[in-house]
């Protein structure tokens, strides 16, 4: 696995965006750290490469804010893992962040639109 260094081919995840991604993944159903990390990579077609460790402080922060809740469960291959699920507050937060993100993306796209003489 390569770590992104240049940022040209594998962009660093924008600050604060990681939270939104985690919430989005969990919106699909509960998961533990490992599944979340891999889900982000898979769904971004391996463009977004996170250092998996950096997921955990983010999970801790989200849990502390009450957007996700956790429980110990058993993983697909029968190992103990800490599972996370989205709370009602988290669902609301996700929709807020998603719409904010969409506004930004739209704004950036507007700026980047080909110049018409």
């Amino acid at each position, binding site marked *: *696995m390569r770590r992104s260094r240049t940022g040209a081919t594998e962009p660093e995840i924008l600050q604060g965006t990681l939270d939104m991604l985690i919430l989005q993944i969990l919106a699909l159903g509960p998961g*533990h750290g*490992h599944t979340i990390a891999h889900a982000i990579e898979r769904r971004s077609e391996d463009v977004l490469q996170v*250092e*998996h*460790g*950096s997921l955990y402080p983010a999970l*801790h922060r989200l849990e*502390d804010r009450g957007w996700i809740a956790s429980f110990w469960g058993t993983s697909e291959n029968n*190992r103990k893992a800490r599972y996370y699920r989205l709370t009602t507050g988290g669902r609301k937060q996700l929709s807020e962040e998603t719409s904010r993100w969409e506004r930004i993306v739209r704004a950036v796209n507007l700026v980047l639109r080909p110049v018409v003489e």
Partner: protein
Amino acid sequence: MSWRRFIRRRWWDQERAREIDAYLEIETADNVARGMSLREAAAAARRKFGNPGLVREDIYRMNTIGWLESIWQDLRYGARLLRLSPGFAVVAIASLALGIGANTAIFQLLDAVRLRSLPVRNPQELAEVKIVGGNHGMGLNQQYGELTRPLWQLIRDKQQAFSGMFAWGVNQRYVGKGSQMRHFNQLLVSGDFFAVLGMRPWRGRLLIAEDEGACPTSAAVVSYSYWQSELGGRDIGSGGAGIKLEADNDLVEIVGVTPPEFFGMVVGQSFDIARPFCRPKDALRRDIYEVSVMGRVRRDWSLQRASAEMEALSPGIFEATVPPGRDPRTDEMYKHFRLGVYPASGGVSALRETYDRSLWLLLGITGLVLLIACANLANLMLARASAREREIAVRLALGASRGRLFRQLLAESGLVAGMGAALGIALAQILSRALVWSISPEGEAVNLRIATDWRMLLFAAVVTALTCVVFGVVPALRSTDSQPASAMKAGGRGMTAGRERFSLQRLMIVTQISVSVVLLVGALLFVRSFRNLMTLDPGMREGGITFAFLGFWQSDLARERWPEFQRQLLEEVQAIPGVLSAATTTQAPLRGGSWEHSVRTGSIEGNSKFTWISPDYFRTMGIPVVRGRGFSRDDTATSQRVAVVNQTFVRRFLGGADPLGHTLRTAPEPNYPSTVYEIVGVIPDTKYNDIRGETPPITFAPASQFPAQGPWTNMMIYSNAPPAAVTAAVKQRIGEKHPDVIAELGSLQQGIRDGLLQEQLMAMLAGFFGLLAAVLAMVGLYGVISYIVARRRNEIGIRLALGAARGQVIGMVMREAGKLLVVGVALGTALSLIAGRSVGSLLFGLRPYDAFTLLAADGLLASIAVLAAFLPARKAAKLDPMSALRWE
């Protein structure tokens, strides 16, 4: 910042560690499934994850509260350092504990006496109605009595300013008969007293308006402490099943108990039994000032408005209550009295008036002692800081921030201060109780609620924080201010410490010396003042005199037989073996109280104290009659009225002329018709009711001619036997012959000493703190001079090697100390002169700027200081130059 998270941060750390392990396991398993070897798989998983340690740290940091964590670290580091130098720790903590303890104890007492409000609902609404400027000694004045009952009734009926009013008075009464009698503090209250105070009963019920009635009333309420100690906490039954007591000759029924925190209206003297006012058969006396009138001012009224209303009511109220049988001038003065309203949230207290000034002064003194202790500590810290100079320099060079190092050094001071405070608070609990005990006269405990509450803790905390700032901040600033490079060089050998290095220590020493001078001057002033009082000649015999108060109102003697019965009691006492002589008097000397009549001699008019005595009084009290004669059995109820006066009387009323043959006339008062006395003798000036007071004009008249003998008498008994033996003998004799006579006895000398408790306390405490200050200053000076000598070891070694005489070295060090001493003493003397103004009123027989005292204090301190400096100086002179130069 979340405390919940903070408290559970370790648990979370464990939790996250497990989670991370779980990730690694799963990832490794996945990798193995993809065909990697186990080792490769584990390594790949770790690479994928990143640094688990950093992740855990990240999370831990999120959970923790940064400054708290670092303070905790600093404190642990400080504690380790203190453990390394236990000597320093013990000295530092002990001196702070003593300082903080003493301050807190004095504060507790001051708080209890002065600052605390009464334990009733909304005490701040309470206000008292008083005559502006007092009643000028008119009529009979009882303790805490500000107004008469007729005045109270008129005020209550006419006023608008108070939403509720009550009146109360206190006196000492007896329960039980004759020799079985016991004292109790009686609280007399108007019916609304408890209702207006908003008090709930602890047991039974409290007094209500309907309990007031014709004398004698039967309902009574006891205080919690009296209920516990005297009534054994028995059940207060109802409907005739209650506790009955014979109090003050009346049969009363205890109907309730007040809550434990309520002690009455007098701070320092708990009431025992509260009874309602009763209506006597005759009209209420208009000349007995026996009640204090208080109430709750209406919420929308200010004190000024209430006062204005009272002032407006005054003319009518006083016009309607003029006491009978006075001369027109007195009547006129009475009609011009004005009422005012004063805040009364703290109740009243004689203790407060007596000790207020002393306690503030003591707080100042203990504050100064603490300051000296702080200066000492600061010096110690400075010395330690320079010993750690290298360590600090290295840490600065390695990139520690100055702020972080400063915090760390301060944490050490804070630790010392905190431990000192904890010990000090414990010490204060003992000290404050010892103080209360020491201001309690014999057999009459002062009842003060010494509370360990947030006010006291807040005070101790503020004092501690100040302390910590004073002794901690400056050294910490100083040592973090150093330049690493030069500090590391200077820490090496061969350098002489720069002059400014010690300037701070010099400043501390000068402060210590000057403050010690102030405290020593204070100590000497109070000790000498107390000594003046103790050695004062009152002009009469003190030793061997027993004072007796005999009351016979419980016997059913007819009023006409009282004078005769009094003589009979005297003869019985005189007949007791060991009694050399005994005499009766209406006013026992040196025991407070006052008895005065208006007199006129020729054209001069004024007041003279009046005392009626039996013939042997002067002989018993060892007072010589310097002119004319004393009294004899020939002076009877029917013979010519005669008087013996003191020399002040002669000067004041007769212009120093030979008084024999002159007459004096008293102004009429109820029960005391105007009488003409012929002066037949003169005695020298003796103290009257207080050993401190100036001698007033005193007139003595024969007991046989006393116009208003009551069912009681005072007796002065002279004996070789100790007062305790005399007391026992008299009690036994009177108890056998007249079981219904109440007898109270005490030693005159003990009584005088009890009257000097305040002076004794000041002398003891000021003396103790003065000496403590001197010792602390000496230790400080010794420490600093030793330190300076140690730092200059190389230099001194070189001087000695180059041929300096040992005497020269001693001289050099002593000059150093001498300069500090001179500046400190001069400053201290100046400060003493300024501070002296505030203690003038507490001193007896000397002025606050007493030259001898100042010189003695300066001299004492100077000699201690010279000694403290000489020891290190001699050590310096004994240095072996070779070893000094080799020493690093």
